[in-house]
């Protein structure tokens, strides 16, 4: 257990600024107007929480106008332990985003694995690391080959695939809420995906179902002096879901507004890559 908690430890976090192109050019599932200013403000709060509230070392990459989605760093890399897999995002326009990410992670001393296979695509948003194994959502953005490469990069762990029938990413409706605890949306496809995950796993997971799929995307960390920390969407956005989350005992719950980024399918986890340098051997 202690070791499992350690896997949710976090010392460094990589984020990236929001380019002005986000408002108009960033990909989105459904058309929406994004208030760039608000989005930037939200993001700044998000980063600030990481930095001052949680005391993490924040590596902030500069935004790039040519990459409207670059703020969603999660898709560019999957970091587990001392290994970072630089992904090959499913949408072509986003592939350049990985370059800066790779450099940053290299600087942090991580072992870099690159996804060079032309046929492979993988978005970090489709990768759910439970601390014991990986689930990779096979979605519009991620394919089997990408999942295989991930499996190859993290050989210690089982990598199971889960079909993502709706939503952008696997983590669009779920995330880890703690060791052995999966936060899951209540939609049918979310529940179905959870069932598959539970069936595929040798480990047992508890689930916490929240009414809103998007509210199931939270950032969980286990920090030395703070214990369980959960960054979640604010009550304004998902009042019912937040009520459910508030049942979590002994958690430090930190509401973070994510309204604008949500419009371009940006969930909380999308905007950061967590690194635990201590777990590094």
């Amino acid at each position: 257990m202690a070791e499992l908690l350690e896997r949710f430890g976090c010392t460094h976090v990589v984020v990236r600024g929001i380019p002005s192109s986000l408002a108009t050019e960033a990909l989105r599932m459904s058309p929406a107007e994004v208030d760039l200013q608000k989005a930037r403000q939200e993001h700044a709060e998000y980063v600030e929480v990481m930095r001052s509230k949680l005391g993490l070392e924040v590596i902030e990459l500069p935004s790039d106008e040519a990459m409207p989605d670059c703020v969603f760093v999660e898709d560019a890399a999957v970091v587990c332990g001392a290994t970072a897999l630089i992904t090959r995002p499913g949408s072509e326009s986003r592939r350049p985003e990985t370059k800066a990410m790779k450099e940053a992670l290299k600087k942090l001393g991580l072992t870099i694995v690159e996804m060079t296979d032309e046929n492979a695509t993988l978005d970090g948003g489709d990768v759910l690391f439970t601390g014991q194994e990986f689930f990779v959502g096979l979605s519009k953005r991620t394919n089997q080959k990408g999942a295989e490469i991930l499996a190859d990069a993290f050989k210690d762990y089982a990598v199971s695939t889960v079909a993502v029938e709706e939503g952008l990413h696997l983590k669009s409706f779920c995330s880890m809420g703690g060791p052995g605890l999966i936060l899951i949306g209540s939609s049918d496809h979310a529940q179905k995906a959870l069932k598959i995950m539970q069936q595929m796993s040798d480990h047992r997971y508890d689930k916490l179902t929240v009414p809103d799929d998007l509210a199931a995307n939270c950032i969980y960390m286990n920090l030395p002096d703070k214990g369980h920390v959960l960054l979640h969407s604010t009550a304004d956005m998902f009042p019912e879901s937040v009520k459910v989350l508030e049942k979590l005992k002994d958690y430090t719950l930190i509401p973070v507004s994510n309204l604008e980024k949500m419009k371009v399918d940006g969930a909380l986890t999308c905007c950061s890559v967590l690194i635990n340098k201590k777990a590094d051997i």
Partner: protein
Amino acid sequence: MVNTTLRVEGSDLSAVRAFKNTVRQQLETRFKLDSDDLPSSIPVVACMLDPCFKHLKFIPDSKRERAYSHLDTLLLRVSETLSVTNVGVETCETEQTGKDIGKKARLELDFAELFGTHFESGQNTARGSTATEEARQYFLLPQIPTLDNPLQCQNKYSEVERKAPSVGVAMTTEAGTETEVKEKAEESAALADQSEQATEETQEVVTAEGEKREKEGKGISRYLPTWLKKQKSQTQTSPTKDVPPSEEAVDKETEKVPEVNGHAEEVEEEQEQKKDAEKSEQVKEKEELPEVDAKEQSEPVKEEKVEKSEEKSAEEETKAVAEGDKTEEETKETTEAPVEEKDTQTSLFQSPLRLVRKNKMKLVVCHVTLLDGTDYTCEVEKRVKGQYLFFKVCEHLNLMEKDYFGLTYKDTHDHKCWLDPTKEIKRQIRSNNWKFSVNVKFYPPDPSLLTEDLTRYLLCLQLREDVASGKLPCSFVTHALLGSYSLQAELGDYETEQPKPLDYMSQLKFAPSQNKDMEEKILELHKSHRGLTPAQADAQFLENAKKLSMYGVDMHHAKDSEGVDITLGVCANGLLVYKDKLRINRFAWPKILKISYKRNNFYIKIRPGETEQFESTVGFKLQNHRSAKRLWKVCVENHSFFRLNAPEPPNKTRFLTLGSKFRYSGRTQAQTRVASTLIDRPAPNFERTSSKRISRSLDGAPMISITDTSAGENGREPHLELNSDSKVDLSPGDDEAATSQSPGASEAAPSQDHDKTQDEVLKHQASISELKRSFMEAPPPSPPQPNLWEKRLTSSPATTIRVQPQPVVTVSQTETSPVEIVISEPKEPVKTAEVEIEETVVVQEVSKTTKPVIVTVEKVPIEPVVKIEEAMTFAEEEKQCKQSVSSESESEEEAEYHPNAHATLSHTQIPEEKEEEEKVVVVEVVEEVKEEEEEDQVKNDTPVDLPATQEPPPAESRQELVETDQAGTQTKDNAEEKPPAVLEKDESVDEPMVTPDEAPNGLPLGDDAEQEEPKVNGQHMETALRPQVICCTEPPVVKTEMVTISDTFAAQKTEIATKEVPIVHTETKTITYEAAQLEGNGDAEPGVLMTAQTITSESLCTTTTTHITKTLKGGLSETRIEKRIVITGDCDIDHDEALAQAIKEAKEQHPDMRRIDSQRAEVAMASADNH
């Protein structure tokens, strides 16, 4: 005639003369040439089966006629056996009595086996008649031109001898490898073609192949007519063929003449090795004599052996007829323990040294590659079973926790196969290459639970190899970490002055692709391990290795139904499906209802999910039939080892069962863990040697010390070990039981047969339940009703055990009786976020006890002694006989296994296609044993019990009826229900519903059972030793037995609504402590009162459904409380706590209730997984 053919001639060498004399004696004894019995004698029948002698020209006409008619009878019976239902079998089997049974049964077995092979070619219909027809044709064909009398062969033989005196030497030479034999077969065939005259031919052969004479002489396989062989081989076996038989053929034949040979036990092996035998059967030989056997016998031991073999053969017959019946063996074992057997006594396995006593057996040198890469060479008898070698190796390694390990060999296709401990090595390896490797067979999920460092060390060695070879994939970091622990364990602390560390490192193999980076990392990490002892380093190594996702996963390449390449991984938890490196599916053991293979297809039948109504079957295509079988076996073994408390008993009979009878025969993890805790020896000394990878790459590098773990280290006293081991499997706290059993073990004195000893040991080691089961299955030592048992045994082939949740009266209840609890385990708490706990409480009371006959009140342990629990399930199928026969021919082609708790005890089942017709009656006999000593106590108590028990019987039988009725009303299919038990007993059965079918399964009940209580307990029935479910707090306790029949179908129905579900009768035989007065649970209304109530309560995370069923019959009240607690893990709950709470509540309501602890453990485990 004998005298003339075997006349001693002055010219004979003295050895030859002696030989001839011996042979003559043997022949006379065997053929009973003067006896009236002749036509029916086995040798004559055998001769008829030989195309060379089939016309029996050597016996008088009248006798010949009788011989033919006898054969006809035999054929007829066999046909019946093969083609008709089990009723047929029963009839033909039960009509025989006494000694006759054995003989006939044996013949039948042989026949059936042969027919079986014959049918393998695919004739599914009219088997019997076809066989008979062919038999007739066979007799119509002219006899092969050869001598008319088998005895004349001796004549030729002596000629041969004269020409080639060296044959005498060759006599002891056994046929070599199979290939050799084949080779020779070809040669001789060629020769045969050239020569017309038998004599000439013989001589030719002799001159050409000097020492092969012996083999030819020995081959008896020619007894087998073509029509008894595989069809495909018929061309080969054309009458002109002359081929020396393989050794197996010889064995086979000798078995048919049990009086003569001393290899009676080979009957069993024979059955197991049917395939092999078939092969050899194909080999035909013209020059062949019964005296071959005599030759074997002419060894010094001969005389005694013959006598002994008579006994043995009788015993063996039983064995052959009813595999798995060990009681009889047990009895004999006690008197037959071989002295040489020391090391084997510790094991659960059956005797490894089966062959030791055949002192003329050829020794073979085995090369065993140990885990550290060194070779261990030892000599074993050629015919020893796998476990003999394995034990030898373990002894050499000084390894006690041996159950995790096994020996592997490479088959002819270079596939690694596990050496089956229960079978002869020779028949498994099928080559002259006696090379083996020690390997970890079951990777303990938590190596820290191993008792000895030595075991951990060996596991480490295996894992190092796995990691280095890439079989166990791991990341760079893990490679480095594991490598560093290896270095620490092997070399000790990092030495800064160590010369050229990196060079050295590069010669070590840590990973499939290692580089400087990794080596540097390893060294760096090595430095950080300073101070760790080798044992600690190993432990750390294992802690890291066990977390790897592929740890302990045995991979098999396959294709899915769409032809996509996938990999199936078998592990402790179930079956994993990988596509490339991704896990695409997973079937936990509890999810799997049945595992089977057919040809190169491998199937798993999946328990329906919550939303599904029907079970589904998933099929995979393996590369070939061998791979499918290998995968199937691995599944069976892994499931048994990791999921069962005790291994499933082997199928009762060899014949009439489907497919492979393979079952895991060793200890399960549960057993071995218990055993481990009882290891009481100082930590064995062993030196860590540089592992193989090092020694290979680094010739004589200074730091490498290759150590020889000498076998001498273990100067263990066999007896000590035995004792400790016999305790092992008993529940730890149960000294009484242990002691009561050890005498038996020590009785297994020298001078006894090895196997038996081993079996004996096995018994003692096994849990009590196992003991009881064997009692049930086999004739008791002093069987009160031997015939009954015999019947049971013989008919047992038809018995199928089926795994069924047994429903109690309430239909909605999924699992009820105590047995269920075990079964409910497959519900797989792990799979979903819900933990389903099912609990059954059976409270049984006798309201009517006239006076509290207070007898020695046995102390009812307040805490259920949680031991290895076991439930036996028998199912009998109508039509099974037929079905199984038909599939029997495919024994190697397909097999099934039912891997859930029920399956634990289930025997092979009918192939799916036929399931619809099948009517399975499952008789579950659950004997609730409070304490292991109960048996003894019961005996002691008997006198006292008797008065008390005389009353209950009527009530009980009434109850049975009532229950049956009750089940009937509640189940649709109750038409098929029959009270199983009653038939068994001799007691006049007043039960109208009893049907003959059940006789085989029958259980003693009612008065009979009670009156004979001591015997009943001792002899009878299998028992499920389980945590005590029935609780009686009232002091005046009278022991009675209760039989509960309930229908499983109803329960099953809720889950699986398919007509495939067989109707099941479940019988729970309970030895209960009954209260003199009612507990207030039931009202003592006379007659039948049934109440059923369901209480559902929901709390935050748990839903508790309680079904309470009350039955009152006669003076007997039975209250069943079945609780189903579903813990929903929506939040972080303490499952244990939730369960405990639920149980507490239940207890408050029903003070009598007792919880089954094992279950709790199960749940606890499940919830532990959770965190």
